[in-house]
């Protein structure tokens, strides 16, 4: 073996160690959460966790259904608000706006992603919550408030991935459509969007992952009552809020139950990420 080859081997080996250490952190977290969270789930039965409606940790009642429903509700709400807005912005910025305008607006949208979530929560608490309370009734701290804030927070993800997948649609499709006498909007609706569909869906799922995992902003505007919300104006507690709110003082089985909350969250996010990966690789193959 020459000296150069030895050198290469050394570099390869050290890079391997570094890469593995990054991955092993992920593995340790996974093992730790499951190790801490699953025993209690089997002790009390999976059913009582997933379907139980009462969360009274001091009385050994660990029903997580309100939080599961709560997470799904605010996530769905966030998608109902963020996806149409995000998709419309992406279509405008790629197909209709002047190129110079896009060059200014796209970085601005990406900047939205850099604002700390506590700032979103603060703005929500100061403006959105009173607005909802005064105009629609209820305490203001609500599913609606959380959905609106999350809907805005997922915009950068939805918009930038949608822009990338719309840009990836070959111009030859657009030319072919225009040359047949189609309008720009017909071209977008009937050719460009269907061609970009799987990328757009992957972006939506990543946004969904962001919404379901967001904690701080949600805690600040959601009200956090551990009940299944009766309307969109009622307060709601999500899985992430449940952990963040109680971890500071939890001990014993209460603490284990919060890890169990983490396990459920982990599984939901794994499922979403897998779907996102599968859809985006499918698009690349096409």
């Amino acid at each position, binding site marked *: 073996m020459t000296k150069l080859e030895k050198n290469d081997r050394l570099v390869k080996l050290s890079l391997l160690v570094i890469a593995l250490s990054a991955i092993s952190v992920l593995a340790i977290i996974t093992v730790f959460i499951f190790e801490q969270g699953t025993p209690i789930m089997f002790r009390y039965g999976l059913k009582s966790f997933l379907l139980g409606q009462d969360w009274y940790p001091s009385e050994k009642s660990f029903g997580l259904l309100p939080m599961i429903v709560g997470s799904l509700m605010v996530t769905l709400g966030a998608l109902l608000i963020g996806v149409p807005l995000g998709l419309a912005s992406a279509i405008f910025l790629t197909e209709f706006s002047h*190129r110079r305008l896009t060059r200014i607006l796209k970085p601005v949208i990406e900047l939205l992603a850099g604002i700390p979530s506590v700032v979103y929560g603060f703005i929500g608490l100061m403006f959105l919550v009173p607005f909802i309370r005064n105009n629609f009734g209820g305490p203001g701290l609500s599913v609606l408030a959380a959905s609106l804030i999350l809907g805005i927070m997922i915009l950068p993800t939805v918009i930038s991935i949608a822009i990338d997948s719309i840009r990836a649609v*070959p111009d*030859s*499709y657009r*030319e*072919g*459509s*225009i*040359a*047949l*006498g*189609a*309008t720009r909007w*017909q071209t977008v609706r*009937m*050719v460009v969007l*269907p*061609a970009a569909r799987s990328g757009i869906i992957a972006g939506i799922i990543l946004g969904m992952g962001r919404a379901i995992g967001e904690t701080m902003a949600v805690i600040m505007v959601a009200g956090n009552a551990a009940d299944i919300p009766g309307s969109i104006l009622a307060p709601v507690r999500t899985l992430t809020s449940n952990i963040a709110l109680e971890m500071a003082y939890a001990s014993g089985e209460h603490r284990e139950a919060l890890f169990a909350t983490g396990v459920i969250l982990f599984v939901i996010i794994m499922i979403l990420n897998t779907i996102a990966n599968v859809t985006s690789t499918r698009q690349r193959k*096409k």
Partner: protein
Amino acid sequence: MSTGRKNIIEVRNLNVYYGKFQALSNINLDIQANRITALIGPSGCGKSTFLRALNRMNDLIEGCRTKGEVLFEGRNIFDPETDLLELRRRVGMVFQRPNPFPLSIADNITYGLRVHGRNEPNFLEEKLYQSLQAVNLWEELKDRLHDNALRLTGEQQQRLCIARLLAVEPEVVLMDEPCSALDPVATARIEDLMYELKRDYTIVIVTHNMQQAARVSDYTGYFLLGDLVEFGETNQIFTSPRDKRTEDYITGRFG
């Protein structure tokens, strides 16, 4: 031109600019109905720009300006009152690389009809049959009309793109190097198809391939650096070119 046949397109003093660059200068040219007109010339000579002027596809290019007139059936297409969507339906275009939409074969064919507001299932089905028949694809594809068009071979895709165009009943078919992505056998078959189509349509083809121009066209124009150097019957251009530059090009001394 004194052949007495109908000129479907008349180009008068056409100038096209990309920003400050002048891509075409003072082009004057008549295109006769039901004939194949070939445009030849080296890369960057303006022949594709010229073709794209005829259905105003240059409008899509930022910074592209046009002066002069293109009369399509006597009316200037640059007139502000021109119905652009209708113009592009009547003057259709086939591109260099086959560009079927990533939709089913059937949806590709009916696309043009649907964007022009035709949705009657019976009508669409009949057009589907007619158009595929016209490009000799019906027998091959009739059992897989709902397959994705991207799964077809390059030649089938290009035929499909021609069929997609024929479905909207154009009068003129502009072809921008339609065979450059195809092998020689497929090229020959597309050329045969052009021969058949000439009965019902006017064809203008841009080609890099001089043999192709000589084989298929009735008239040939030679472009060089944005000028139309020579235009005339294909026979004459290839056997006794009047301009020295044309002669250099077709004999292979240049280009």
